Structures are given as C-alpha cells and as structure tokens.
C-alpha cells in the first residue's frame, strides 16, 4: 500500500474523511486487515443486535409466550411488568418511594464526595447526616412511615448500601492497616500483615459464605446477627484489605525526604502522619481507590449466593415467574445497563481526577 502512495503528490487524500481513513484505518496491511475484520464483525452483529433490542422488541404483553407470538425481538414487557421488583426488590410496594429517595440520597452523597471543594473534615458530618437519612428512609418507623425490616430491602438501594458503605467504612480501617503494615512495632505490623494477606488470599465469595453459613454456628445459642449486617461486615473487611494495599502504595510513593523533613521539624508520629504524610499519600491514591470502588460495586452481586435480593438477585427473581420464563436475557441486559451507567461515570470521574492531578503536577 505504501508503495502506491509513496510517490503520489499531496492531494485531497491527505485531509478530510479520506485522509483520516488512509492514515488511521488503512495505514498498513495488517491494520487494513484488522479494520476490515472489525467492519465485517460490526456489519454482522450491529444490525442484528439493533433489531433484537429495538425494531423487533415487544413492550406490551402479558408474558413471554405472548411476546414471542408478537415478534421475535427482546421482550421488554418483562421490564415494564417487573421493573419495580428489579429496582427495589421485596420492599413493600406502596412504600417504594422511600428507596427511590434513598437512591437519590446516595447519588447526592457520592456527588458531594467527588467534589474537591468538600475534600476536608466537613465530609464527616455530611456522611453522618446522609447515613442517618438513608437509615431513616429505609427502616422507617418514624414520621408516620411504617417500619420495614431489612429482610425486605433489595434492588438498587441494597447494592448501593453494600458497595458504598462497604467502601466508606473500609476506608478508615484501611488507613490504619496501611499505617500498621509500615509500622516499626513488630506486633502491630505482624497483625496488619496477617490480616491483609489472609483476606486477600481468599475470594470474596468464600468470605460471604463464612459470614452467612459458618459464622452463625459459632455464635452462642439464641444469638443472631442480621444476615445483611453479616454480609456488609464481610464486604467491609474485604474492601479494607484491598484498600490498605492501595494506600500503602501511596505511602511508599512519597519521597523519603517528606518523612525526614517531618522528623527534622520534631513532629511526633501522629502529627507527621496526619499533617504531612496522609494528605499527600491519599491524594495520590484517589484514582486507584475509585477503581476499586468500581470493582466493589460489581462484586456486591455475589451476595446472590447468600440469598440477599440485590439488583442482580432481584433481576433473577423477575424471570422465575412462569409467565415470564425465558426472558432472562432481557432482565440481564436491563441490570447490566444499570451497572454500566454507574461504572462508566465512576471511571470517567477517575479519568478527570487523574487529568486534574497531572495538571497540578506540571504547575
């Protein structure tokens, strides 16, 4: 290809759409082959997917059978019928405005926490107010709202509770673990290293199993800890171990001079850590933290195995109904798009943060 174009004078082919095509899409023989393959794949799949998703899809029907009789595309009637079950799980139907507000509260809390203006101690009271408001809306029992026990929580609010609270409560624990791991006190260090390596050495699914199947047997007779709380604690413990390693990375990336300068000023350990080391280290690790939040958000779907009705399990429950059997793909596509929207915005936010830090570094 280059042989053909090498001697040719500058022409309309160097600019515009054709130029872009030549430079980017067909710049060499392997690239051209890959480009053609991608175009072929797109031609093969996109129209069929679009047809399934949109053109041949059915929005109004009473069941999968009726859907399939009308057209052979996606049966979105399932989502029309079951969207409240998927979004809010087993929460009492007439009270579902409350979890809806909770989702709004979560978005507000996350939004505030993402804004750099609030990156100071004012976040602590904001979170306390947020948590109290979320707990009040979910449980109720005050202000004329009926009490809803937490066995009935589910759907998107439950997924957000498990992942956001999991990360938020893991954070202080993770800081202590990371500091402990770099501590000069041998016992503290040993405990932290053991904890981190032990937790990181097992998959989340086995921790959840421990929390839900083994742990109750160890409790004294007659004592019970709520299933949701057990799962939440397991997730916090898991997230803390991973975050601790991320934070340790931040601590280690600080130049030794920072530690020595703080020591030279005569600052004690906690002053040095609190005023000099942590503020710098935590700033560095925010993008990887967002990354682990994305992972955590998706990992919470593992609570399916302990019978909690999070977004994923509620979606599964939606097509158990015999009238809607066979519409699993539609339910999965629906929850996948919800997961995608959340993860996409988190990842965009992480990118913008990194760009911001890069600018700050240059200055």
């Amino acid at each position, binding site marked *: 290809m280059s042989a053909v174009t090498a001697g040719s004078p500058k022409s309309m082919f160097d600019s515009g759409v054709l130029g872009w095509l030549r430079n980017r899409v067909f710049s060499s023989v392997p690239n051209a082959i890959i480009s053609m393959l991608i175009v072929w794949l797109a031609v093969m799949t996109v129209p069929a997917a679009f047809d399934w998703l949109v053109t041949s899809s059915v929005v109004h029907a009473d*069941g*999968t*059978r009726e859907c399939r009789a009308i057209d052979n595309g996606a049966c979105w009637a399932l989502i029309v*019928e*079951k969207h*409240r*079950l998927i979004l*809010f*799980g*087993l*929460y*009492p*139907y007439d009270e579902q405005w409350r979890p809806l507000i909770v989702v709004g509260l979560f978005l507000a809390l996350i939004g505030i926490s993402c804004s750099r203006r609030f990156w100071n101690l004012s976040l*602590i009271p904001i*979170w*306390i107010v947020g*948590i*109290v408001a979320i*707990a009040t809306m979910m449980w109720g029992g005050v202000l004329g709202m009926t009490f809803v*026990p*937490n*066995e*009935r929580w*589910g759907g998107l609010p439950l997924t957000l509770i498990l992942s956001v*609270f999991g990360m*938020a*409560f893991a954070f*202080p624990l993770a800081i202590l673990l990371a500091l402990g791991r770099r501590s000069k006190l041998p016992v503290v260090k040993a405990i932290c290293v053991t904890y981190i390596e032990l937790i990181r050495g097992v998959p989340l699914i086995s921790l959840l*199993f421990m929390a*839900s*199947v*083994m742990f*109750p*047997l160890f*409790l004294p*007779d*007659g*004592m*019970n*800890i*709520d*299933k*949701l*709380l057990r799962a939440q604690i397991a997730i916090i413990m898991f997230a803390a171990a991973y975050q601790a390693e991320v934070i340790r990375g931040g601590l280690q990336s600080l130049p030794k001079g920072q530690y020595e300068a703080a020591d030279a000023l005569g600052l004690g350990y906690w002053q040095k850590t609190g005023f000099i080391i942590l503020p710098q280290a935590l700033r560095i690790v925010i993008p990887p933290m967002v990354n682990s939040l994305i992972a955590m958000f998706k990992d919470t779907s593992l609570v399916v*195995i*302990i*019978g*909690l*009705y999070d977004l994923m*399990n509620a979606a*599964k*429950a939606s097509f*158990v*109904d*015999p*009238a809607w*059997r*066979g519409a*699993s793909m539609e339910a999965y596509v629906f929850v996948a798009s919800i997961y995608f929207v959340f993860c996409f915005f988190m990842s965009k936010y992480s990118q913008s943060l990194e760009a911001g830090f890069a600018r700050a570094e240059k200055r």
Partner: protein
Amino acid sequence: MKARILLAAAASVAVSFAAPAFAGATFDAVKARGSITCGVNSGVAGFSAPDSKGEWTGIDVDLCKAVAAALFGDASKVKYVGLTAQQRFTALQSGEIDVLSRNTTGTLTRDTSLGLNFVGVNFYDGQGFMVPKKLNVKSAKELGGATVCVQPGTTTELNLADYFRANKMDFKPVVIEKLEEVIAAFFSGRCDVYTTDASGLASTRATSAPNPDDYVILPELISKEPLGPMVRHGDDQWFDLVKWSLYAMIEAEENGIDSKNLDEMLKSTNPVVQRILGVNGDMGKALGVDNKWAYNIIKTVGNYGESYERNVGSGSKLKIPRNLNNLWTKGGLQYAWPVR
C-alpha cells in the same frame, strides 16, 4: 470513625436474640416476638418466589402463612428469609429461622445427624421423563438407546444412570448446566428425553414447550422426593404446631371445607367438621393456640387443594397435575391424621 460508631449503634438494632433450642422455647419465643421467621427458597416458581409487587407467593409460602394464621390468627405475621441450598440447614440450626419451608427433600441423615425434624410432606415429587409424543413411547422401559438431556446435579444424573443400568438399557446423556439451555436443547430436538423432577417437567411443558400437547410425561418416577417443612430438634410443641397446620389444610380438603364455604361449615352438624373448626372440642387448646386455629388457616390460606391449585396446579401457569399429591381418597398420598 464517628460514622463507624454510628454503624455499631445501628448494628445493635439488628442483633437480635432468638430462642435457644430447648423444650417449648421456640414456641414461646415466636409467640413473644409476634411473628414467625420462615426460611423459603429465594426463587422457585410455584413453591416460593416474589411476585411483581415483591410479595412472596407459593405453596411453601402458604405453609408459613398457615402456621402464622394458626398461632396469631393473622397470616401476614411472617418474616420471610430467602435461602440458598447451602444456607438452609445452618439457618435453621442456628435459630435464624423458626421453620424451613423450602422444597427440601426429607432423608434419614437430614432427619437425624443435622439435628432437624421433618414435619410432613406438602409436595410429593420424584424424578421423571418427558418425551415428544411423536416418538410413541408409553413407558420409561422403552427408552433403551435414547439421548437424554439432563442437568448435572447431585442426584438427578445419578438416578438416571442407576435406572438405566438396573433395567439393562443404554443411553447417551447430554449434560447441560443451565436450565434454560437444557430446555432449549430438548425442545429443539437435540435429545429424545428430558429428565428432572416431575414438577419441573410439568411446569417446563406448560411454560416453555412450543406446543404442550406434543409432549408426554411418562408414568414412571425413578426417585422419591418428599418435599416438606422442617424444624429444629428440641421443641416438640413447635413441631406439633407446624405439623398440624399442614394437616389442618389437608383434613379440611378431605372434609370439603374451603375458604368459600367456611362460614356455612361452622353450622355443620358433622362432628369431624365441628372439631376442625373449633365449634366443638378443645383441639386448639391442646396445641397451645386458639380453638379457631384451623378456621383461621382456611380463612386466609385455604385448604390444601386450594393452595395447590392456586400455586402449582390448574389455577397457575405451571399446571402440575395432582397425581401423588391428591388426597388418599382420590388415589394420591396426602393423608392427614384425624383431628380428634
């Protein structure tokens, strides 16, 4: 850190003390708590699954409601806990739930070494075979050399192999993990036979077959799966209440009492009906509940037949025939001890 202290405070709300397992304790604890905690399957159509409004329905759920109706006169006083197969026994052993009503097969080891008691049978199931009608097969004994679609599982695959070996027949298994895929494989003709529990066969035929009349379920059942509720060892009074809540529903059907004619039946002169409905005798008192216990069950949940038809039988999409679950007077196995 403050937030964590707050969580701890909130957590203490969630930590509850249920009854330790000694005689009468579960019964008393449930009564004091004012609601029953019932372990159910987190999603099996007809047995226990949340409907579009997030309310639990199913034949196993009806049993939980029946116990609540007997004890409190109110079928809504139930807290449901969705459980996976791995969790179910621990949840009962540890006291997280008071009764396990989760399509669980009763076996000797579960009844003994797990420390649980099998109360009764609310659904007789068993592994069966479904074939296309055009194959003209009348009995499982004619299936030699067939291709069989089966899901890999603890016993389904094993029972299949045992049955064919015992009858000196060959078969080619097509093992597919996912339910939807194994069903699709069978209806597309990749195998001659599909095997799973009979209830599963009937519901698959009713909901997924291109034309349900083109398929037949063969009469042979090759395994016994008596499904029913379980309670912990150690509280016989609680065991009795769960058992008789189930029996009341069966006994009501046998004596022609249903949720519609219930109030007329109160005037019945039949002493059996009078005893069941608490018009005569102290049956409820013997159980430690109100004498109207069975009346309350039938009023809110209906008799066994009504519950069956509504959830898995002709009134549902599953359309599972009564067969073994018919009353003993109609050729089935459902046989309750007399209320007297």
